[in-house]
């Protein structure tokens, strides 16, 4: 693993009409680390995620995951290779229970087809058991076992974020992409979420996240990439980024107090 980066992005570009939302970005992310992407609004962060997850094809450039060229692959194949993601707005199956939401998360690791359903094959029964077990496991991991049978409608915003994490985890990913996981939740909950992210990394999952909450990023990230107008303007440790004049100019602002 060590010699091979988990994710290697070269010259990645995405154009919408005349606008280059992501422009010639090259970067590598190491396994077992927390990598953060920050940047002003519209810098192209979400687009960057969309490209990595295969939700849209890049206009140019390549994406290598664990040494394999995944450029232009469909999102479901990429998910099966081990990249999971959460969305900027949390999407869940509102009218099912938490556990039911999670069972389908492990579907991609199963083989059962319609035929198995018709004959109720052993494989199907085994796999359903496996999915259920995995769901319970990830739920426990995010610390929501007590909510297993509650409906998504009934749980709080922060709990939903956790369920979304769990859903991503249920796919058995190598890498999870988190798009503003702490958006819209309060400082205390943000801190809890940060520890959850650390816990994910401890369990061998690499994380890549987008956030605007600087204190969280600075304490969490091993490495930060800064995007502006689609271009990578800086890359480095939190310490380096904090003091990078380019970043301060474009993003952080000189007055520190708004970050309180």
């Amino acid at each position: 693993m060590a010699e091979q980066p988990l994710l290697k992005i070269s010259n990645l570009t995405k154009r919408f009409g005349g606008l280059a939302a992501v422009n010639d970005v090259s970067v590598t992310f190491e396994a077992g680390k927390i990598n953060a992407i920050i940047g002003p609004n519209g810098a192209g962060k979400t687009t960057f995620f969309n490209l990595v997850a295969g939700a849209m094809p890049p206009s140019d450039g390549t994406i290598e995951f664990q040494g394999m060229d995944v450029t232009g692959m469909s999102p479901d194949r990429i998910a099966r290779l081990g990249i999971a993601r959460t969305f900027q707005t949390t999407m869940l199956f509102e009218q099912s229970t938490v556990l039911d939401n999670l069972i389908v998360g492990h579907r991609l690791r199963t083989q059962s087809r319609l035929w198995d359903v018709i004959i109720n094959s052993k494989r199907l029964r085994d796999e359903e058991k496996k999915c259920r077990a995995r769901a319970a496991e990830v739920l426990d991991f995010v610390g929501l076992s007590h909510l297993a049978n509650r409906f998504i409608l009934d749980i709080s915003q922060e709990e939903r974020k956790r369920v979304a994490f769990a859903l991503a985890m249920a796919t058995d990913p190598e890498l999870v992409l988190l798009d503003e996981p702490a958006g819209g939740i309060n400082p205390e909950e943000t801190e809890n979420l940060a520890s959850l992210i650390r816990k994910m990394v401890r369990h061998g999952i690499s994380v890549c996240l987008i956030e605007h909450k600087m204190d969280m990023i600075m304490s969490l990230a091993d490495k930060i990439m800064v995007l502006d107008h689609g271009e990578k303007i800086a890359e480095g440790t939190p310490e380096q980024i904090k003091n990078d004049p380019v970043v301060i100019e474009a993003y952080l602002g000189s007055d520190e107090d708004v970050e309180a």
Partner: protein
Amino acid sequence: MLKLENVDARYEGFKALDGVSMNVEAGELVVLLGANGAGKSTLFNTISGLLKASAGRISLNGEDVTGKKPSALVQAGVVQCPEGRKLFPEMSVLKNLMLGGYVHRRDRAGMKKTLDHVLEMFPILNDKKDDAAGSLSGGQQQMVAIGRALMGRPKLLMLDEPSLGLAPLVVKQVFEAVQSINREGTTVLLAEQNAFAALKIATRAYVIENGRLVMEGDREAMLGNEAVRKAYIGA
């Protein structure tokens, strides 16, 4: 200016506001603090008429406005910049802003002036003014939403988590903008997660928990309050 007396609001059976009474004087900048789901948005929606109060009374400058239609409230100068933005995604940014001035549509010159003011505040919108609002990034859309609310030339401006999803630099700009709007004479009611930044520009604040107002105080009192610091500012 705005006065709420024992206002209740319900979603089907669930009571989301419970006996809320508050008072906002003209020219104030009042901050509403509260955790997720505490009822901040519900309160705003009730004031702006999107939700009907199930009990209690809301009055504006002494006049009873309980149960009035949202359009009537906008006419009366109560404008909300909602959570979730609620833009017109397929219209251009410019059209979105112009529609914000819908109630002043006969005053073309005035609208032009406000528009210039807004574009000055958010220069990026000037570059994007012919793009569909839905194609903008989250933060850019937030700017459009604030701009659109300003176009209504509100007497009372309600901002529901305006900093949500904004870069720190922009957050700072937004708070400065809010402050200057307020200085120019607009009363502001601000719901925020970013409590510290909000309190710094506030005159007064309320804390809402589970649909009830549990605390009230001016800026210094709030900033100094240990419980508030712990719950909403962190560290």
